[in-house]
């Protein structure tokens, strides 16, 4: 179990290898990577966050997933700062004995990340940039875990 909030890019292969290292009890690993989509008018996005609260919120989300499913490992990496189209933004990994728990835990962590971790996306560059609105569909996605 660990979380990182960083400006630097991450390496999915290296993260996966670190989580599996020396283990033979893991039967399933699910990973999700979120990427920057190109928006109309070009430019990538800038991610602002709340240092301190962000790390605590991610750790809490991960702990909730570990309490709900029997995970054998987990990892959350979230980037901040200026990100170009195509860049990786977020990584979630869940490892378990069987795939159902790994799939569900990865989806659960992503659903919570979307609207419970203090990040704010601004799309585009200069005058044309705009803050991304929160989407009702993201809030609704949380309800299925109640």
């Amino acid at each position: 179990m660990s979380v990182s909030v960083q400006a630097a890019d991450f390496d999915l292969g290296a993260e996966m290898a670190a989580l599996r290292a020396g283990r033979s009890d893991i039967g399933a690993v699910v990973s999700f990577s979120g990427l920057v989509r190109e928006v109309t008018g070009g430019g990538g996005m800038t991610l602002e966050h709340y240092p301190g609260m962000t790390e605590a919120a991610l750790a809490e989300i991960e702990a909730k997933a570990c309490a709900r499913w029997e995970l054998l490992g987990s990892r959350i990496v979230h980037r901040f700062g200026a990100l170009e189209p195509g860049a990786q933004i977020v990584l979630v990994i869940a490892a378990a004995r069987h795939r159902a728990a790994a799939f569900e835990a990865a989806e659960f962590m992503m659903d919570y990340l979307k609207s419970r971790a203090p990040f704010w996306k601004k799309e585009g560059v200069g005058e044309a940039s705009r803050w991304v609105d929160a989407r009702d569909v993201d809030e609704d996605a949380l309800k299925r875990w109640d």
Partner: protein
Amino acid sequence: MKVLYFAWLRERIGLPFEVVSTRADDVAGLVAELAARSEAHALAFSDMRAVRVALDQELSDMSAPLAGVAEVAFFPPMTGG
């Protein structure tokens, strides 16, 4: 008390944070005091449906008491992931 602003609240107010002394009992009372500080503050707090609050880095709500709180943050709904 330290008050932090993020995203468009920070841009509208023009400050990442400010240190304020307040007589408010709860978050709503603090918002009323802050909104009276300048036109920019008033604009930032004009639609409270679009504002979320954290007290000492824990998500909270507008009716929460401020007793013992050292850090208050205001921001729009979060858009991570």
